[in-house]
């Protein structure tokens, strides 16, 4: 689209790619939790303030495993009591 600007460096975008920094205009982006500036979603750390984003999976996967373990233990105990 003519007139489109890069969300990252404000340079012109040609064929979905920034002519200055090479970032795709359709790449997922997010606000940095530290400085609130727009950065690439895939970036592990903010290039402006070096704030490292924690992956949500660090608590989701253990929680899911713990739930299944709890259900397994409860079912074993219930089987022993019956």
């Amino acid at each position, binding site marked *: *689209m003519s007139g489109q600007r890069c969300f990252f460096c404000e340079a012109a975008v040609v*064929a979905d790619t920034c002519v200055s920094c090479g970032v795709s205009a359709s790449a997922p982006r*997010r606000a940095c939790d530290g400085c609130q500036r727009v950065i690439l979603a895939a970036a592990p750390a903010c290039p402006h303030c070096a704030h490292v984003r924690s992956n949500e999976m660090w608590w989701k996967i253990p929680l899911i495993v713990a739930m299944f373990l*709890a259900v*397994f233990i409860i079912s074993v105990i219930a089987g022993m009591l019956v």
Partner: protein
Amino acid sequence: LWLNAAGWAGVQAQLDETFFSGKRNLVAPNDLESAMARFKREDILAAFQPHLQPGEEITHHAFGVKQPHFLLLVGLIFLGILPGIIAVFLLTKEYVVAMTNRRVIILQVKGKLNVKEMREFALGSVPPATTSTGGLFTHIKVQSEPPFVAKFHRMGLPNNREDAMAIGAALSGQALPGAA
């Protein structure tokens, strides 16, 4: 939720009117969709407002999800129904998508429309995309980097099916059936 006597009388009167006056048979399908909608229309439009450019107007908006792979979903529920359902809920990504006169904006949200990620596709330069519509869901897949895949339930929002089909048609470059 504690109600005083007057408040409770009002609720009781409303329930009586709904359930004993025969009006329940007169509920329009759109009212049902509004009642089942995940978000309110005003809230969705407000979530997109900071991302709009001057002069840009939203023409369609839809709510969709990306669930884990079907086999993983079945496996998790097979292992344990309740933890399986909770696990599927935790692993599901929610999206609100808006089409404007210039582009398609995709917001990945969590909770009450808290935006986690945002991406956009200019209508003139969309990567290859495929869409399909079944009885319940409209599936949209954009082969971008990374790919965008989501499915849109027809009851996700009022007119969610029509809006998702319109957005899918714009992304895939197809004309909607019946469109001039």
